[in-house]
């Protein structure tokens, strides 16, 4: 890795658990090595809210509501290379296990029929994003360039993967690095 201009990386967690982000931090001292070549744009790690033009976008989590769609599209617009990071981004993961339920009934169960919620109602605050009827992996909503499965993928693996991207080398995943849990 030579000392050229740093690559800009943005990250976001959609319907995920931040586990993949934790994994990203789990690189220990190698994150310093990484930071010699990249700088983080919008990311929960930086608290920057809007995405600028970026080289690489890392998406954790699937798409479960309207806001997720907007953010994901913004990432697609701004990022040259978009990566689905982790099981939920890749196939919907745990949140997608609600997909065989009717989202209306889910809302009803949570806000209307739960004990001690007599007279409750489904919140209609426009600030709250509306849930989609199904949770989708990110590749069903925008074009995705690379996928890194794992729940979460290890920090080591993320490092190798990003190093590959930085060097312009096609990431190659196979056993035992490639795992789905």
């Amino acid at each position, binding site marked *: 890795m030579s000392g050229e201009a740093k690559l800009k990386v943005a990250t976001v967690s959609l319907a995920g658990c931040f586990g993949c982000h934790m994994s990203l931090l789990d690189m220990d001292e190698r994150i310093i090595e990484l930071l010699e070549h990249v700088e983080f744009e919008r990311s929960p790690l930086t608290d920057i809210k809007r995405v600028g033009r970026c080289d690489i976008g890392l998406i954790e989590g699937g798409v479960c509501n309207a806001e997720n769609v907007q953010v994901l599209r913004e990432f697609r617009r701004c990022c040259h290379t978009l990566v689905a990071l982790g099981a939920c981004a890749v196939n919907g993961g745990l949140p997608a296990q609600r997909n065989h339920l009717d989202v209306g009934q889910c809302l009803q169960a949570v806000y209307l029929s739960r004990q001690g919620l007599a007279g409750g109602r489904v919140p209609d605050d426009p600030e709250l994003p509306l849930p989609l009827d199904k949770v989708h992996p990110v590749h069903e909503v925008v074009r995705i360039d690379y996928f890194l499965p794992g729940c979460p993928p290890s920090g080591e693996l993320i490092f190798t993967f990003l190093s590959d991207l930085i060097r312009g080398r096609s990431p190659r995943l196979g056993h035992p690095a*490639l795992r*789905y849990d």
Partner: protein
Amino acid sequence: MMETAHFLLDGVAVPFAEGQTILEAARAAGRYIPHLCWHPDFPPHGSCKLCIVAVGGRHLSACATPAVDGAVVASDVPEINAERRALLQMLFVEGNHFCPSCEKSGLCQLQALASELGMTTPRFNHFYPDRPVDASHPDVLLDFNRCIYCELCVRASRDQDGKSVFALTNRGIHKHLVVNAESGRLGDTDFAADDVAAGICPVGVILRKRVGFAVPIGSRTYDTRPISAVSMDREEP
């Protein structure tokens, strides 16, 4: 001296006996060809198509195609592995495979093959079918969300256990497993946890209760060794 009949598998000669399939002969010669619905104890089934190989210009199921003298067979080549990956992707999107919450993870042949063949994405749109689980049996759980229709349970229960607990019904994408009871519940059949069929599922459908997640991550069957190695452990009958 008469030369024994042989074919070329990825450029290497593989001898075979009359009547052996390409897959059997390859295994006997210590060469792995991916497979899911094939099992050494049963006749070939030919449904998963993971064992696809190119013979001449044609793509055939190695598990069901008799070896032919002088044939040129390509298996571990980019074109064929790409088709295998696509078949795996199909199996992943037609069911509900959430590995992190599956007891079979690390012990699952579908997952292990996907890992070895470098399947990083399910690629297609998910079907997210609605398939309720059957927990009616005291010792065994059926989670139909992960069925790949290899019919190993059907065959094992019928041919080895002599019970015919399982069968397939409906067709096309609506094909699904049924159990041998008017109620449709496994608990109402004579299925037992020590049936051969209880241990044969290559994926996470037929699960013994109360033993899930017993093996720690890192020491499960496919954590350290790829399926191409594990699969060859077994001596063929």
